[in-house]
C-alpha cells in the first residue's frame, strides 16, 4: 500500500491516465488484485485543502521489488504525475521510491496465500473434476 503526492494540478490528468489504462496488470506476473486511484483526503478544520495523492495497493506473489519494477513499467504514464517519480528505468530506484511512500499495514485478511498460478490451476482442476462427476467418468 503506497501513497504518493501528486504534482500540483495534475490530479485530473492522473485520473484520466488511470481511466485510459487497458489491462496493464495482466502483464505483471503474480498479481492477484490491484487498485490505483487518486485519493483526496478531507480537509482538516481551519487548514487549507490538502493535496491529492495517488494510492497504489496490490495483493501479489513474492517479494515487492520485482513486482514493483514490473508495475512501474506498466504505470509509468500514471506515476509520471507523482512527485519525485524516478521513471521506470531503474528497478532499484523504483523500489526505493515506493518504500519511502509505503503505508504500514496494521493488519490484513487475505482469502488465500496460494500464488496466482496455483489458484488458476486449482480452478481448472475443479472444473475438470466437476465435469467428470457429471459425466460419470474417471480420469
Amino acid at each position: 500500500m503506497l501513497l504518493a503526492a501528486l504534482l500540483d494540478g495534475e490530479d485530473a490528468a492522473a485520473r484520466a491516465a488511470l481511466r485510459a489504462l487497458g489491462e496493464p496488470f495482466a502483464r505483471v506476473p503474480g498479481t492477484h488484485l490491484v487498485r490505483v486511484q487518486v485519493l483526496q483526503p478531507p480537509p482538516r478544520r481551519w487548514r487549507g485543502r490538502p493535496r491529492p495523492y495517488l494510492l497504489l495497493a496490490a495483493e501479489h506473489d513474492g517479494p515487492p521489488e520485482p513486482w514493483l519494477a514490473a508495475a512501474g513499467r506498466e504505470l509509468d504514464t500514471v506515476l509520471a504525475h507523482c512527485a519525485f517519480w524516478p521513471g521506470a528505468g531503474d528497478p532499484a530506484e523504483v523500489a526505493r521510491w515506493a518504500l519511502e511512500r509505503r503505508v504500514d499495514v496494521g493488519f490484513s485478511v487475505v482469502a488465500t496465500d496460494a500464488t496466482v498460478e496455483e489458484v488458476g490451476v486449482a480452478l481448472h482442476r475443479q472444473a475438470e473434476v466437476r465435469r467428470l462427476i457429471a459425466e460419470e467418468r474417471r480420469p
Partner: protein
Amino acid sequence: MAPSPLTILSPVPWWWALWIRVSWPLARLTGFVAAPLQKLSFIHAARWGLVARWPPDRAARRDRGAPRSLLFLTTFDGSAVQYIEAFVRVVPGRIMGLYGGAQGFPGVRRSRPVERYIREHSHPVDHFWCAYPDATVTMKRQALALTAHYDAYLASDRSDAAWRRFTTQAQTLL
C-alpha cells in the same frame, strides 16, 4: 459478478491513533480480529493502515492539511450492503475496536448509519484489476482444497473405491 473494491479513509483523533498503534500488534499476534473476518467468506482481501503522516515520504514537507487517518482497502464478493451487514451483525465488537474513535463513526448498533458513514468516507477506485474476475473467495478456497484431495487420489491406485472416496471427501468443494 466480479469482485468489488472499496477504499475508505477515516480521519481519527490522536488518541485513537494511539489506541490503534497499541492494539494492532496484539490483534495481529492473536488473530483476534483476522480469524472471524477470514470466516466471512466473501472477503478477497482487507487491509488496514494508519496514515499518520501525509505524505509518508519523509523527505517531503508534511502536509498538515490532511488529517491523521485510518485507511481501509478491501475487495469483496457480493454487495457493499451485505458486507456492511456482516460487519455490523457478525463482528460488531471488532469493528468498534477499529473504528470506535474515528471521527463521525456512528457505532455498530444499526446498519444504516454505518452504510451512510461508508458512503461519505469512501473514495472511488479509478483502476481495479483482478486475476480471476469470475472466481469468488469461496470458489478459490474450494478449488485449492479440492486440489489437495485430487493429488492424493492421483497418487493412489485410482480404483473405483478410491474415486468414490475422493469424490465423497470433496463433495462440498465442487
